[in-house]
């Protein structure tokens, strides 16, 4: 027994914290670097301008730049001006990109001028397929994409996505409160619907999703994971929608984005190379020493949308013990948390109570139903 205790104490000594948080001291923080995000594409090009902030500044404080003059210029002498929106977002409309013409982005802001390098548009191929895969044993569900390009095209791809899903409250409430807390039962004929039953939620990609086929003989990307989640995630519980944006990239853009992603995923191991900056394709022409962050490619963006219905077999509900309903006399009735949700007009004593999370979907989602949503849920 004593021997065991000694072993434990020794183990404790040896195993105490090998990785701990670190705040570097005496670092001159650099802020106010111009950050340019976007791709020159056909139709509407969206360019987002912001400025970098100090490392320990508030995360959301990334400053938007709204006072810039932005345009796209072609080497055929055409110039397309941007409409500046709020929040540092600029939109430029180009009906058609000519495959033989070179385009570049021009920005004027705070007395400096910036330009991206000229390049010809890359004709991104269509997305072949968006599909799901799952491994129930491991509890993994993925949304994947497959695509292919011609062998003489670039072999680098990036994706981003928006997803929207419907959620449904676990319990259906049958009334609403009117003025003076009068109970009014829902009535679909008179148009009073339960608006706490169906809600919607959305999310979008928040990192680079990149792949290349440069080590393959064919320019094919199969089963690239876009969303990695679990089969029990609520996003699959009702109707799920995803819109995928696909871009074919130049090698330079791919290397640049790969490096940015690598710089925030380092593990500090002995063999990891020193993190470093490589330059994008945007330069400050008035002062070449000012670094600029971002890479603006010229590429025709392709999109594809799919719905995943709950009867496709992807969703595996988790057992939910919390959502039950009880009468006021039941011993499980929780006066501090439960609310009336099912009103028995004939026999009010048998009315049911439950937790608001169980019958009010607005506790988890919003009522922002997209106008293209393919069902009539209210």
């Amino acid at each position, binding site marked *: 027994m004593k021997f065991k205790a000694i072993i434990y104490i*020794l183990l404790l*000594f*040896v*195993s105490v*914290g*090998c*990785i*701990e*948080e*670190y*705040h*570097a001291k*005496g*670092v*001159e*923080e*650099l*802020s106010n*670097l111009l*950050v340019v*995000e976007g791709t020159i594409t056909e139709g509407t090009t969206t360019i987002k301008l*912001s*400025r*970098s*902030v*100090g*490392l320990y*500044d508030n*995360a959301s404080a*990334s400053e938007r730049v709204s006072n810039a003059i932005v345009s796209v210029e072609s080497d055929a002498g055409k110039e397309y001006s941007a409409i500046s929106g709020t929040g540092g977002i600029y939109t430029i409309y180009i009906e058609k990109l000519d495959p033989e013409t070179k385009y570049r982005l021009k920005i004027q802001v705070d007395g400096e001028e910036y330009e991206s390098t000229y390049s010809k548009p890359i004709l991104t191929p269509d997305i072949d397929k968006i599909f799901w895969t799952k491994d129930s044993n491991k509890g993994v569900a993925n949304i994947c994409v497959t695509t292919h390009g011609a062998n003489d095209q670039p072999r680098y791809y990036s994706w*981003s996505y928006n997803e929207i899903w419907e959620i449904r409250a676990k319990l259906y409430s049958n009334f609403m409160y009117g003025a003076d807390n009068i109970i009014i039962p829902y009535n679909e004929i008179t148009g009073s619907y339960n608006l706490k039953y169906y809600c919607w939620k959305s999310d*979008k*990609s*928040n*990192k*680079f999703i990149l792949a290349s086929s440069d080590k393959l003989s064919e320019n094919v990307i199969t089963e690239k994971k876009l969303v990695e989640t679990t089969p029990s995630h609520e996003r699959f519980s009702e109707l799920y929608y995803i819109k995928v944006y696909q871009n074919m990239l130049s090698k330079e853009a791919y*290397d*640049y984005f*790969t*490096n*940015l992603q690598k*710089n*925030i*995923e*380092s*593990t*500090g191991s*002995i*063999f*990891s*190379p*020193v*993190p*470093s*900056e*490589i*330059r994008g394709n945007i330069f400050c022409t008035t002062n070449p020493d000012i*670094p600029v*962050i*971002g890479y603006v490619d010229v590429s025709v963006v392709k999109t594809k949308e799919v719905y995943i219905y709950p009867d496709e077999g992807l969703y595996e509900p988790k057992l939910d013990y919390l959502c039950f309903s009880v009468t006021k006399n039941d011993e499980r009735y929780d006066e501090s948390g439960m609310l009336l949700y099912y009103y028995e007009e004939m026999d009010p004593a048998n009315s049911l109570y439950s937790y608001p999370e169980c019958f009010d979907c607005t506790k988890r989602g919003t009522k922002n139903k997209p106008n293209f949503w393919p069902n009539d849920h209210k």
Partner: protein
Amino acid sequence: MLLYSANWKSAEHTIAAAGLYKNFARNTIEASLETYYKTMDDYLDYRNGAQLLMNHHIETDVLTTKGRAYGVELMFKKTQGKLNGWISYAYSRTQLRQEDKRISLPVNKGDWYPDDFDKPHEFKFIGNYKFTHRYSLSLNCEYTTGRPITLPVSKYQYVGGQYVYYSDRNKYRGPDYFRMDMAFNIEPSHHLTLLTHSTITFGVYNLTGRKNAHSVYYKSENGVIKGYKLSIFGSPIPYVSYNIKF
């Protein structure tokens, strides 16, 4: 770490060194002062944004650099008596520079930058105290300047997530390194006729339990950048060793 191949010239080093040596106190204390200067040609270092894993053309991601290393070391050594050991201080630098005109974006704009193992100040102490012929205590102390590190200096939003902008290569210093080890040695027998002589040592490595940084790195967690320090042997490690000499 990097293998030399047909794609690289082998590195060439030229070194010049000089020293002053003097003994004091009836030759029981040896003092030395040494200095050196070394130049290196075609020394290899990573290109900015180097991709090391699964890269079939790794030669395109390393660059040949020029290097220089120089320093002075002062040392006192006591070889006899109950208390013996040595104490030393060294100031040394190792710096690299990418000045090949064919490189479009040299590391740190072609200026001199510290090598990954550039540790200017190094102080060492090793002491032994013999209580008797049988029992002795030894102490080992080491202090060095922290290794050079490259730190993020700015952050920004891109594609919906948070990213960081890194400083010039090796512009900053990690935390200083300090370690103290202590050991108690027992020599059970001094019989000259024995076939083997053995010693038993009870010791503690890193007695003060200082969490010396092996590396410092930054990563994104749920879209927020956090800095981490990785330390190896960051606590006192007791050990027992049994040595046999023959």
